[in-house]
């Protein structure tokens, strides 16, 4: 039994917009995530998965329940590679920013680490002096991954990291993530709406509908014997289509 890196117990979150009734977004969310696994989180828009992620990162105020995180500074990669990189900064500057904030590095050390990271995610050195707008979607997503890994986090949250990309690029990014996971011993919470992608990437999966986790388990088991009607519907949508 490996160590638990994230434990969520009876998490409830609420959201209130002015003049409207308080909404109950996440309902009684309970799950565990183990060190070194890739845990899939599947749900459609409005299922509450984005709110769940925000809650895990401490960005939701109105919540009850326990979130136990055994990793320091979880990092995140985002769906839209166009809005996740600051358009006014060069890639090199961006990659050094986490180290600059953390402090205790000389300029040379920072630059060396940034170049090393670029190499790790399969990018050329010359990208260091490029602006995000000069890169393709796939390259940007590699930069995002590099940026998230600069602080060597133990937990990485990947929010639909491939769904904005072309299929051939998707495959490359997925392979990169799998490689980095092995190299760096990452645990990844992998959010996706695409059951095929989850099948390729994840060890276990959580199925979310309407703020609740309706089913969880090993990917093969859930896919072969879906217990909840919603899971069945999702799988049907993929296999009949």
């Amino acid at each position: 039994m490996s160590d638990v890196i994230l434990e969520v117990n009876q998490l409830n979150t609420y959201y209130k917009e002015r003049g409207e009734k308080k909404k109950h977004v996440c309902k009684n969310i309970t799950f565990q995530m183990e060190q070194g696994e890739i845990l899939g989180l599947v749900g459609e828009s409005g299922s509450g998965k984005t709110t769940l992620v925000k809650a895990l990162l401490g960005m939701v105020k109105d919540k009850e329940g326990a979130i136990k995180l055994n990793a320091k500074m979880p990092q995140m990669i985002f769906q839209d590679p166009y809005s996740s990189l600051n358009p006014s900064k060069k890639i090199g500057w961006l990659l050094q920013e986490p180290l600059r904030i953390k402090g205790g590095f000389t300029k040379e050390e920072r630059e060396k680490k940034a170049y090393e990271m670029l190499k790790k995610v399969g990018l050329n050195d010359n990208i260091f002096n490029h602006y995000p707008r000069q890169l393709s979607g796939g390259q940007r997503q590699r930069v995002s991954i590099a940026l998230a890994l600069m602080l060597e986090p133990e937990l990485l949250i990947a929010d639909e990291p491939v769904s904005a990309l072309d299929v051939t690029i998707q495959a490359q990014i997925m392979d990169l993530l799998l490689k980095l996971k092995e190299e760096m011993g990452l645990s990844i919470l992998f959010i996706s709406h695409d059951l095929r992608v989850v099948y390729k990437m994840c060890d276990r999966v959580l199925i979310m509908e309407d703020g609740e986790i309706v089913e969880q388990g090993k990917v093969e088991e859930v896919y072969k014997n879906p217990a909840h009607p919603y899971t069945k519907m999702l799988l049907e949508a993929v296999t009949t289509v």
Partner: protein
Amino acid sequence: MLLEVKDLNIEFHDHLTPETVVYDFNLSLKEGEIVGIVGESGSGKTMSALAIAGLLNRKDMKKSGEILFDGKDLLTCKRSELRSYQGNDISMIFQEPMTSLNPVKKIGAQVEESLKIHTNLTKEERYQKAISILNDVEIKDPESVYHKYPHQLSGGMRQRVMIASAMILEPKILIADEPTTALDVTIQAQIIKLLKKLNKQKKTSILFISHDLSLVRTLCHRAIVMKQGYILEEGNIEEIFEHPKEAYTKQLIEAIPALEL
């Protein structure tokens, strides 16, 4: 043959050197047939579709070749003649149902707009037709949806409304440009089913543009694979998936994560 596209080339002239985005595009579409055009971004699939729908009229763009519909060349015929086909014989639906609907007009008005343009039906007749097509696209309570605005509907509903407004005159060809990409998977499956149903019931031929090979496989009879403006491969759906001739096609198919259940 319902539609025949011969050697279609599309060039942009907004730069110093003209840039060709579609090279020697050929396509034939039979009545009742569903043909898929597959490719990644920049493959020229959307440009070809827009050209066939008669929606590429920018001045800095050059088109050559032939687009024969009913023996008439849509590329060279008069604009007024082209308009008489648009929405009437050839309709189109788009990727983003929210932005593709006019935000300040009621659903009813948008659904029956083609009737207003192409027929002399009375207001009451138009209303009846609109309600009946809204029923056909499986919208519950069409009478109330008729009086709503786009922002009051969900994404899936909006795409159904788009389909209704494109299908109201029972066109011979429906061009669908990534109609399900912006939708959730379960909604996506419903829309694909709906397109299949409409194709069977109304014998409408569908030109289905998508980046998603698994969708194309379930929906289409034939498919064309495009890359960087060129047609790489075309053929029956089974042929393409079982025995792809081109390495790129193989790569595309392999990029879809397998689901072994």
